[in-house]
């Protein structure tokens, strides 16, 4: 017992000492990658040590090794939930929500009156607890993934709309005048100048929406779902005190969320290579 606690303490001190040494050195790609990794591994090792050292009941907090075994032994359940929640619910809703917000933003942008009216309202709605609409949408669209996609659409719509509308006005009047002197029409100006200039804002909206989409799809399942899905599994497994399965689902959610966000960040880097924030 004390052995595990001692192990946790040693790992913590060792990891921190190593990181202090590394952080004092020059910033390279290698160190800026390895330092957070060491920190993360240290945390996991300390978690393992503390859980085993204090003999914490697995009903309260399972050890990382237990979670890993559970993860490995129930991959089929996890995959089924992943398909139900992420691919059917979150991704469909994300594409529909962001797509419609983008199109409406372009429409709104053509009329200054609409823009000035919708922007404050959109900002206001984006700050509201929209997730509360989940029970209503579950009633309207049934228990299956359609209602989850609907929740996601509602959640991602306004952040995306506000960001796109803001982005479309990001080009300066000087640049727009230049397009006029080249006799460029509305569509040419939109495609060649204003949309590219809006890209940093659009990607900001897409990034915010990516986290919201997963949250929306999972929380909507708390209000009713068929017998699969990550939110469903989490809420029922908590009831059965199978916390290792809950943590395994959370690991899946974490990996999915990070991968989703990372994928958008990579696309952003390729599309907005000209923007100052992307320079190295």
């Amino acid at each position: 017992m004390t052995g595990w606690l001692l192990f946790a303490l040693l790992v913590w001190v060792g990891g921190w000492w190593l990181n202090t040494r590394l952080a004092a050195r020059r910033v390279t790609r290698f160190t800026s990658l390895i330092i957070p990794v060491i920190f993360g591994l240290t945390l996991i090792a300390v978690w393992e040590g503390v859980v085993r050292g204090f003999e914490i009941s697995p009903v309260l907090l399972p050890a990382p090794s237990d979670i890993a075994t559970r993860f490995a032994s129930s991959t089929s359940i996890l995959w089924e939930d992943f398909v139900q929640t992420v691919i059917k619910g979150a991704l469909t809703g994300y594409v529909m929500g962001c797509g419609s917000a983008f199109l409406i933003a372009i429409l709104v942008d053509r009329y200054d009156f609409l823009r000035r009216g919708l922007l404050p309202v959109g900002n206001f709605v984006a700050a509201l607890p929209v997730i509360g609409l989940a029970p209503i949408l579950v009633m309207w669209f049934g228990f299956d993934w359609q209602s989850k996609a609907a929740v996601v659409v509602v959640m991602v719509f306004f952040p995306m709309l506000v960001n796109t509308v803001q982005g479309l006005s990001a080009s300066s009047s000087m640049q727009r005048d230049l397009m006029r002197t080249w006799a460029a029409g509305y569509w040419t100006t939109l495609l060649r100048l204003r949309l590219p200039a809006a890209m940093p804002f659009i990607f900001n909206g897409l990034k915010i929406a990516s986290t919201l989409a997963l949250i929306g799809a999972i929380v909507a399942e708390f209000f009713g779902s068929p017998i699969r899905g990550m939110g469903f599994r989490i809420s029922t497994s908590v009831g059965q005190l199978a916390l290792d399965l809950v943590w395994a689902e959370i690991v899946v959610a974490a990996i999915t969320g990070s991968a989703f966000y990372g994928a958008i960040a990579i696309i952003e880097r390729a599309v907005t290579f000209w923007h100052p924030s992307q320079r190295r």
Partner: protein
Amino acid sequence: MKGSVLPVLTVVCGIFVIWYAAAVWLNATWAYDKAARSGVELSTQMLIADAWSQEKPKLPAPHQVAVEIWKTTVEKKITSKRSLIYHSWITLSATLLGFALGTALGIALAVGIIYNRTMDRSVMPWIIASQTIPILAIAPMIIVVLNAAGISGLLPKATISMYLSFFPVVVGMVKGLRSPDQMQLDQMRTWSASGAQTFWRLRLPASMPYLFTSLKIGMAASLVGAIVGELPTGAVAGLGARLLAGSYYGQTIQIWSALLMAAALAAALVGLIGLIQRITLSRMGMA
């Protein structure tokens, strides 16, 4: 700002028109069913009248929700379990506690990140990564586990609020505390200011605009956390519980009134921070 009053009003009116129209459209099926069963031919006028006054409509009309809110706030005693103010207060207290804890944690982490290089390079990436995790998924677990550990009531909900609200504060404060440029820091050096003095007199005041912007985001996130935190406790009390109970019993009007109450709460809280921001910044000569 002045030129946007008319457009905003137009958009809001448009939303109400769409809402009323959608209420007719969504509730029409039920109205026709009812009419067919009692053998009555339904005129358009009767259809609209019925669609806007059903007891359990698919989408209640705005005035029905307004009446429900009026009944559950003004006409009920605050201590009554059916008073929306009582439920709002429960959610509000969890929100505020979580928000206070989250802000304190966020500022403490930001100060640590500014002054400790190791912390900056090892913790900061994880703080950012932690937000790509759909953290609300953990909410039921946090509630149940803390309950099992003997902690119940306000704190579990506040924990979720705290987790959601600390992130914007950390990111905003790190940016804000780093916002004084080299020239200003050198100026402090020439006055032989100590580290503490540089912090209290330069870095902290310079970070205020960033802090308030983050606080607004944190407050909205914190309310969402409190509402979601109320779901797995089995609908005891609070706005989240009203939502859940409403969805169990098909009480759509109750759901919508709880939802609008939450929206009003969010607007009021964010507006309050905005007001404090305006006063503070103008007294500091920054706005």
